C-alpha cells in the first residue's frame, strides 16, 4: 500500500480562486432599495395567504401568486426577535408588527443591555450618504421602554 511515511515527502498545492460578482437586487429588491434610499420601508403583500413579506418578494412562497400589492412598514414599529454580540457589535433580527420576515441590522448599544422583545426603530443614514443598500439603515435603536 502506497502511503507517505516521511514528513518531508508531503506536498501541498496552494492556490486561490479570486471571484468577483455584481448582484442585482431583483424586481422586488430593486423597488425596496430605491424606497429605502428615500427613508421608507415597504413590504409586499399576499392577500389570499394573509402574508406580508419583508424583505419583499414578487411571489408568495406559499401559494406562488405573483405579488403586486405593497404596504408601508412604519420604521419605528420594530421589535427585537433575537440578537447576538459578534465582532464587538450587536446584530439583531428585527421584526415588525404584522409582518412576516424582518430586517437584519446593527443594534445601537444603550444604557441597558438588549433583550428579546424590546421595541426599536430604524435610524437611516443622512440622505446624501444613502446608496440604495440595506446599510442605508445605519442602525436600530430602542424606542421608549
Amino acid at each position, binding site marked *: 500500500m502506497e502511503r507517505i511515511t516521511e514528513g518531508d515527502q508531503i506536498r501541498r498545492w496552494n492556490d486561490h480562486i479570486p471571484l468577483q460578482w*455584481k448582484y442585482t437586487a431583483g424586481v422586488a429588491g430593486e423597488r425596496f432599495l430605491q424606497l429605502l434610499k428615500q427613508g421608507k420601508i415597504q413590504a409586499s403583500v399576499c392577500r389570499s395567504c394573509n402574508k406580508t413579506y419583508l424583505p419583499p418578494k414578487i411571489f408568495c412562497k406559499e401559494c406562488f401568486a405573483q405579488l403586486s400589492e405593497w404596504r408601508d412598514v412604519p420604521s419605528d414599529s420594530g421589535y427585537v426577535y433575537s440578537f447576538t454580540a459578534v465582532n464587538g457589535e450587536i446584530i439583531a433580527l428585527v421584526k415588525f408588527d404584522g409582518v412576516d420576515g424582518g430586517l437584519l441590522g446593527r443594534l445601537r448599544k444603550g444604557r441597558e443591555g438588549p433583550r428579546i422583545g424590546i421595541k426599536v426603530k430604524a435610524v437611516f443614514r443622512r440622505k446624501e450618504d444613502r446608496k440604495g443598500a440595506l446599510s442605508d439603515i445605519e442602525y436600530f435603536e430602542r424606542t421608549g421602554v
Partner: protein
Amino acid sequence: MSERVKFFPGREIRSRSIDEVLASEYAADLKYSWASGAAMSRFLIELKNGRIIARKCNKCKRILLPPRIFCEDCFRETDGWFYVKDTGTVNTYSISYVAADASRLKEPLFVAVINIEGATEGMGFLHLLGEVSEKELKVGMRVGAVWKPEAERIGSILDIRYFKPI
C-alpha cells in the same frame, strides 16, 4: 415556448442601461491548500528532479499518468512507481486567442494533450507547446519537454516550460 403562452417573463438589462439598476459588488478571494497526497506529492517531487513518474497496475498492466494510488478500472491499489520519458506525441491541439477571463491574448497560446512515451498508449496530460509555428502543428507530431533550469523548479507542472517538436 408553447404557442399557448404569449408572455415570457424576464427583463433584460441592456449595456447602456446597466447603471440604471442598483447592483452590489462583492469580491471573495477563496484560498485553498490542497493536500497533494501520496501519488501527486511524488509526481511533483520528481518534476523538480526533471523526471516524470507514473504508477503501474499489475492487474491491467497499465502505466497510469497522471499517477494515482488506485486503478480506476480494476478498483484496487496500484502496485508501484514507473519513470516514463519526457517525450511524447500530440494527441490533439488547439490555438488559444483568449485568456481565462475571455479577454484577448496578445500572442496566441498553443496547447495540446500530449501522450507521454512510456505510459500506456493514450495516457498523457495537457500542456503548452513552444518553439513551433502554426503551420507545423499537427496531430501525431513528436514533442519533448523543455524544462526550466533546475534552480527555478519548484515541484509544479510548470517546471516543464512547454513541449517542443523533436
